[in-house]
C-alpha cells in the first residue's frame, strides 16, 4: 500500500509500536543473553563443584585405602613379631602390644589389659627386686629420655617356669600437626621391648657344660694315663741309673723309655690340640737365652738320631740376639716337632737346623729352617701338610710314631706367635720347613762369632747315642724331704730318683698323714705334694698346712697338664711345680734350690764329694773315641802328677804346662760329654792363663783324681775296641743273611726277617756290624719300616762285599 494512502496518525502509531516491539525484542534478546550467561555460569559452577567433589572423594578413598593398608601391615607386625613389644603411655598404662606378649601372658585379647597400669599386670610376673628395677627404669625413661636395658626372669603365664628376657625401655613419641589449638600437639609413651633369651641361655649353659665335661674328661684321662706312664718312665730311669747293666738290657730300657715318652708326647699333642680348639692355649712369654734354647733343642733331638747314619748340622748366625722375650717352651715345641719329623723321616744323609733373624717394626723375626735329606713329600700331599691327623706314605710309615697332630699344632702355635710356616719338599730328595716367628726384642748383645762357632761345632754324626740326661747330682745328706702321693709306684719313682742325692726321704700316701707329720713338729726341706689325691687333694692339704702355720717349702707334683699352671699353684700356697712324669732336671733344680742353696755350709762340705758324683749317664761315645780319650787322659794325668811332684821340690813358677794340659783335657772331656769336668778344666785353664798358681794348686789334685776315676770307669767300654780287633767276621754268611733279610722285607715277611737277624745274632760281629744289624732290627721292630730295612740290608750287603 502506498504510504500516502496510510493516514499520518496511523503511520505514527505503527512506527511507535514497531519501535516498542523492537525495543522489546532487544530487551528479550538481552534477557536471553543474560539467561544464557547465567546458565553458562551455573553450569560452570556446577562442573567445578562436581569435579572438585569427585577429586575429593577419590582422595579420601585413596587415603582410606592407604590407611587401611597401613593398619593391615601394623596388625601383621603386631601379630607376627616374635618379640614382646609393649607400648605404655606416660602413665604406664597399656596402649598396644604384640601378639607375642598375649601368648606369653596366656591372655586371649589385648582388651583384658588395655589401660591397666603395667604394675598391675607385671607384679606377679617379676620378682620384687626386678619389679622395683622396672619402676625405676620407667621413671628414668619418662623423665630423662634415657634408654634403659636390663635382664630379668619373668613368669608371665604363672607356670612356675620363668623365662629369661633381655628388656629395653625407651621413649616413644611423635609430634601431631593439629590445627586445633585445644588439642595436644604430641603423643608420647614408653616402648618396652623384651627379647626371650631362654633358649640361648640354655644352649649356652649346655655348651659350657659340654665344654667343661670335655675339659674334665681330658684332665682326668690326662691324669689317669700320665700317672702310670710316669711310674713306668720313672722306674726305667732308676734302672738306667744302675751301673754295669748288660748292653741289651740298656737297649731294651731305652726302647721302653722312648716308647713311654712317645706316649706322653701323644697325650700332650692331643691335649694341646684340645686347648687350641677351645681357645685355652695361651702363650707365656718370658725372657730366654737364645743359645740355650738352640742348645737344648739340638741336644734333645740328636738323641733321636739313634744309630741312623744321619749327620746333624747346626748353623746359627753370629748376629742373633742372645736374649729374647717370648714363649720359650712353645718355641722349643715347634722346633722339636720339626726336628723330630726331619729325623724320623730321614734314613740317611743330614738334618740341618739354620737359625737367622731380621728386624720388623721393632720386633725380632726369628727364622728357623729345618732341612733334611729324607723321603720328601709328594706334591699332592703337600697341600694337606698341616691338616690334623694327616700322615703320608702310609705303607712305608705305618708304624712310624705320631698322631699326625704335630704339624697342625706347630702351625697353630706359629700363628699364635704372629708367624708363618712354609714347607718345600721334593719327593725322594728331602724337605725344608721354615718357620718365621715374631719375638720381642730385649736389650742385649748378639751371640757373637765365638758362641755361634761353638754352636756350629755341634756337628754330630749319628752313632747310637742313647737318650740320657747329663746332670750331676750333688750329695745332700743334710736334706730331708717328704713325698705325698696316693700312688705307691709314684712314691717308688720319687724315692728312686732322689736316692742318689743321699737325701733323707719320707713318704706318705695321703694329705692327712702329711698334716699329721707337720702336727708332730716335723719340718722338711721340701714336701713334694701330689696334686690329685682322693679324699683330700694336694691343694687342700697345702692350704691346711699353711693355715696351721707350716712355712716350709711345698712343691706340687702333678700329672694334670690341663689344670694347674704355676700361677694356680702359687696362689694356693705352693712354692714350686714339677710335672709328672718327673723331669729329672726339674727335680734336680728344685733340690738344688730348696736344699743345697739353703744350706750353703753343708753344701760346700759335700761339694768335693759332689765332684766325684758321676753323671747320671755317661754318653756313649764310640769305643774308638773313648780309646783316644783314654790315651790322652793317661798322658794328662802323668803330666799333671809329674808337675805337682816337681813343685813339691822346687816351686814351679811356669804354669804354662798346666795350662796346655788343662786346655787339651777341656776339649777332650767335652767331646765325650763330660761337661762338668770339662768345666773344671776350663776354670783351671783360665787360672793358668792368669798365672793364678794358688787356684791351680788348690784344685789340680782333685782334677787329676777325677780324670783317673774316669779312665777306670770308661775301661769296660774301651775294651770293646780290642774285642773288635780280635773278631773274624764271617762276611759271606753275613751277605747271605742280609740278602734273606732284604728279600723278606720286600715281601713284608717280618718273621723271615727276624729269623735271619736272630741267626746273625748267634755269631760275633764287630761293633759297627752289630750296630748296623741293630739298626735294621729297630726299623722293623719299632717302625715296621720294611722299605727302609730292605734298603739298609741291601746297602750293608754291598758295603760288606766291597
Amino acid at each position, binding site marked *: 500500500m502506498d504510504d500516502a494512502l496510510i493516514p499520518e496518525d496511523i503511520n505514527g502509531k505503527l512506527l511507535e509500536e514497531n519501535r516498542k516491539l523492537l525495543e522489546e525484542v532487544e530487551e528479550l534478546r538481552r534477557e536471553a543473553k543474560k539467561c544464557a*550467561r547465567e546458565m553458562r555460569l551455573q553450569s560452570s559452577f556446577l562442573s*567445578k563443584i562436581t569435579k572438585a567433589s569427585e*577429586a575429593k572423594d577419590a582422595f579420601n*578413598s*585413596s587415603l582410606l*585405602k592407604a590407611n587401611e593398608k597401613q593398619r593391615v601391615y601394623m596388625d601383621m607386625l603386631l601379630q607376627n613379631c616374635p618379640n614382646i613389644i609393649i607400648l605404655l603411655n606416660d602413665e604406664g598404662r597399656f596402649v598396644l602390644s604384640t601378639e607375642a606378649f598375649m601368648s606369653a601372658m596366656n591372655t586371649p585379647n589385648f582388651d583384658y589389659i588395655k589401660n591397666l597400669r603395667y604394675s598391675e599386670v607385671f607384679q606377679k610376673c617379676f620378682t620384687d627386686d626386678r619389679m622395683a628395677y622396672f619402676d625405676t627404669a620407667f621413671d628414668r625413661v619418662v623423665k630423662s629420655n634415657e634408654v634403659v636395658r636390663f635382664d630379668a626372669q619373668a613368669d608371665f603365664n604363672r607356670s612356675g617356669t620363668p623365662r629369661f628376657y633381655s628388656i629395653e625401655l625407651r621413649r616413644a613419641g611423635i609430634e601431631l600437626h593439629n*590445627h586445633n589449638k585445644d588439642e595436644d600437639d604430641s603423643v608420647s609413651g614408653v616402648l618396652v621391648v623384651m627379647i626371650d633369651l631362654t633358649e640361648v641361655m640354655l644352649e649356652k649353659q649346655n655348651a659350657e657344660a659340654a665344654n667343661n665335661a670335655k675339659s674334665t674328661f681330658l684332665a682326668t684321662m690326662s691324669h689317669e694315663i700320665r700317672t702310670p706312664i710316669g711310674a713306668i718312665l720313672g722306674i726305667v730311669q732308676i734302672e738306667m741309673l744302675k751301673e754295669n747293666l748288660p748292653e741289651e738290657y740298656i737297649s731294651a730300657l731305652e726302647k721302653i723309655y722312648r716308647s713311654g715318652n712317645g706316649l706322653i708326647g701323644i697325650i700332650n699333642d692331643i691335649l694341646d690340640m684340645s686347648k687350641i680348639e677351645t681357645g685355652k692355649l695361651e702363650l707365656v712369654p718370658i725372657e730366654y737365652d737364645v743359645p740355650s734354647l738352640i742348645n737344648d733343642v739340638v741336644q734333645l733331638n740328636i738323641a733321636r738320631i739313634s744309630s741312623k747314619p744321619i749327620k746333624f748340622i747346626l748353623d746359627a748366625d753370629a748376629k742373633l740376639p742372645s736374649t729374647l722375650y717370648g714363649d720359650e717352651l712353645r718355641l722349643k715345641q715347634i722346633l722339636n716337632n720339626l726336628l723330630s719329623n726331619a729325623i724320623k723321616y730321614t734314613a740317611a744323609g743330614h738334618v740341618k737346623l739354620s737359625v737367622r733373624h731380621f728386624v720388623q717394626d721393632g720386633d725380632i723375626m726369628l727364622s728357623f729352617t729345618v732341612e733334611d735329606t729324607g723321603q720328601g713329600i709328594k706334591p699332592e700331599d703337600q697341600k694337606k701338610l698341616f691338616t690334623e691327623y694327616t700322615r703320608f706314605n702310609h705303607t712305608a710309615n705305618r708304624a712310624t710314631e705320631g698322631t699326625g697332630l704335630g704339624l697342625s699344632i706347630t702351625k697353630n702355635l706359629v700363628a699364635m706367635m704372629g708367624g708363618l710356616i712354609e714347607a718345600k719338599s721334593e719327593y725322594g730328595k728331602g724337605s725344608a720347613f721354615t718357620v718365621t716367628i715374631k719375638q720381642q726384642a730385649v736389650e742385649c748383645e748378639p751371640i757373637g762369632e765365638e758362641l755361634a762357632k761353638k754352636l756350629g761345632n755341634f756337628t754330630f754324626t749319628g752313632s747310637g747315642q742313647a737318650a740320657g740326661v747329663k746332670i750331676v747330682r750333688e750329695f745332700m745328706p743334710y736334706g730331708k724331704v717328704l713325698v705325698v702321693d696316693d700312688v705307691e709306684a709314684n712314691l717308688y719313682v720319687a724315692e728312686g730318683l732322689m736316692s742318689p742325692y743321699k737325701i733323707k726321704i719320707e713318704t706318705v700316701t695321703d694329705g692327712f698323714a702329711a698334716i699329721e707329720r707337720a702336727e708332730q713338729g716335723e719340718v722338711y726341706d721340701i714336701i713334694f705334694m701330689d696334686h690329685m689325691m682322693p679324699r683330700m687333694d694336694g691343694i687342700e692339704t697345702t692350704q691346711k698346712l699353711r693355715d696351721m702355720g707350716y712355712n716350709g717349702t711345698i712343691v706340687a707334683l702333678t700329672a694334670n697338664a690341663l689344670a694347674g699352671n704355676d700361677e694356680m699353684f702359687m696362689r694356693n700356697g705352693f712354692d714350686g711345680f714339677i710335672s709328672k712324669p718327673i723331669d729329672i732336671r726339674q727335680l734336680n733344680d728344685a733340690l738344688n734350690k730348696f736344699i743345697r742353696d739353703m744350706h750353703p755350709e753343708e753344701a760346700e762340705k759335700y761339694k768335693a764329694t759332689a765332684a766325684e758324683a758321676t753323671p747320671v749317664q755317661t754318653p756313649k761315645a764310640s769305643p774308638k773315641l773313648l780309646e783316644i780319650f783314654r790315651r790322652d787322659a793317661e798322658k794328662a794325668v802323668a803330666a799333671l802328677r809329674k808337675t805337682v811332684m816337681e813343685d813339691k821340690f822346687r816351686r814351679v813358677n811356669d804354669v804354662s804346662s798346666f795350662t796346655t794340659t788343662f786346655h787339651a783335657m777341656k776339649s777332650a772331656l767335652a767331646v765325650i760329654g763330660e761337661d762338668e769336668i770339662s768345666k773344671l778344666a776350663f776354670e783351671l785353664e783360665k787360672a793358668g792363663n792368669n798365672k793364678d798358681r794358688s787356684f791351680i794348686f788348690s784344685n789340680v789334685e782333685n782334677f787329676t783324681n777325677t780324670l783317673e776315676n774316669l779312665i777306670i770307669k770308661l775301661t769296660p767300654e774301651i775294651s770293646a775296641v780290642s774285642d773288635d780287633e780280635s773278631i773274624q767276621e764271617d762276611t759271606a754268611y753275613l751277605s747271605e743273611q742280609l740278602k734273606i733279610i732284604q728279600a723278606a722285607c720286600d715281601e713284608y715277611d717280618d718273621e723271615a726277617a727276624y729269623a735271619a737277624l736272630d741267626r746273625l745274632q748267634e755269631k760275633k760281629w764287630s761293633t759297627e756290624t752289630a750296630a748296623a744289624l741293630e739298626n735294621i732290627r729297630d726299623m722293623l721292630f719299632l717302625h715296621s719300616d720294611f722299605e727302609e730295612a730292605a734298603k739298609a740290608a741291601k746297602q750293608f750287603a754291598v758295603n760288606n762285599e766291597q
Partner: protein
Amino acid sequence: MIKTITLHTTELDYEDKAVGELLAQLEQGGGLLKNTVGIISCHYEFVLSDIFKAACEALPFEIVGTITSAQSVPGEIDTLLMTIMVLTSDDVEFDTIVTDPLMSGNPGQVISDNYKSSCRAEKPALILTFAPFIAQNCGDEYVNAVTEASGGAPCFGTLAIDDTLDFVNCFMLADKEHHNDKMAMILIYGAVSPKFYVANISESRIFGKGANITKSAGSLLMELNGRHVKEYFDEISMTDAAEQQYAMSSLPFLVDFNDGSPKVSRIFVMFVDGGYALCAAAMPQGGTMYIAKTDGADVLLTAGNAIDEITEDIAGKSALLVYTCISRAMALGGNQLGELELLDKKIGGKIPFMVGNSGGEICPTMVSGEKAINRFHNNAFVACMF
C-alpha cells in the same frame, strides 16, 4: 604516596551504563593525580561483551590485568564482576611493559629482553606481573626472568584463570586488548614499601614424611627418594587420587627448596608419558616434597590467618592487592566465594582492596639483603599491601 580508588561494574549489556558507573565511581574517589595506572580483574564475559574495551577507552589511564573467575572490591563480590584498582600518585610513577609473545620456547629470554629494553636505570620498588595461562610454560620461568632482569626487585602478580577450568579463556588484559600469549608488567618507582603475605596449607595437613626430589626437570617430577615418582605414588596409594581430574583441589604439595626460604605450595596436574608427574610449577631437584591434604576448612583457616596479619599491618598503607588460587576456591566446594567474603568481612573499609582468583600466584617469600626471593606459587593466597 599512592591514592587508591576501586571501581566496579556488573553491567554486561549496556556499555554506556557500565562506563557511566565506572566514571561516577572514579569521580567519587576524588579524581586522579599526576601518575595513574589501573589494575583490572574481570570475568571473560566482560571481554566478550566489549564492556572491557569500552571501559579502557573511557578511562584516562592505562589498564592492565587478567581474566579471573571471581573477584571482589570492598562491598562487592561476584563472578560476573569487573573490578579495577586505580593507583594514582604525584610522586610514585608507573611504567607498563607488555612483552612480545611468550610461545617461542624461551619465554624467560623474551621477558628479560623486553624488560631490559623498557626499564629505567633504577630498580623499581615493586613489579606487578600479569600473565595469561600458557600450559606449556612454567610460571617459574617468568618469575626467574623478571627477578634476574630487575636485579631482584620484589615481584607480585598472577596468571589469568577462567571459570570453566578448561584454561582456554585465560587472557591477560592490556592495551585495550585481551592476550593469550603476552605478559604485562607494571613497574612502580618511588617511595613504596610493599609488604607481602603468603598463605597455603597448614603444617598439620602434611601426612607422611617428606620425600627428597632426586630427579626433576622444571615442573616435571621424575623421581622421589631415588625411585620413580609413579612407584612412589603407588606405594602411598595416592595414584588414584592423583589421576583424578582436578586432583589439585585436594592433593597439594609443599616444597622446601632447602635454601632457607619458606616452603611453597605446588599442585599436581597429571601423569604424563613415562609416568612422570607434571606439576603446575617447578619442582626443584634437591628439594623436599611434602604431600598434604587440603579442604575448605583449611583454606579458610589459612586465609583467615593471613588476613589477620594484614589487618595488624594496615596502618599507613594505601592499597591491598590479593590473588587466590582457583584450587582453593574449588576446595571450598559450594562456597567458592568464601575467601573473598572472609576478606571483605575482616578488612571491610579499612583499606581499598581488590581480590581476584588466580591460575598461578607470584609473590616473594623473603628478602635476602637487597634482593627479593620471588617465587611462583600454586594453591596459595598471596597479598601485597603498600
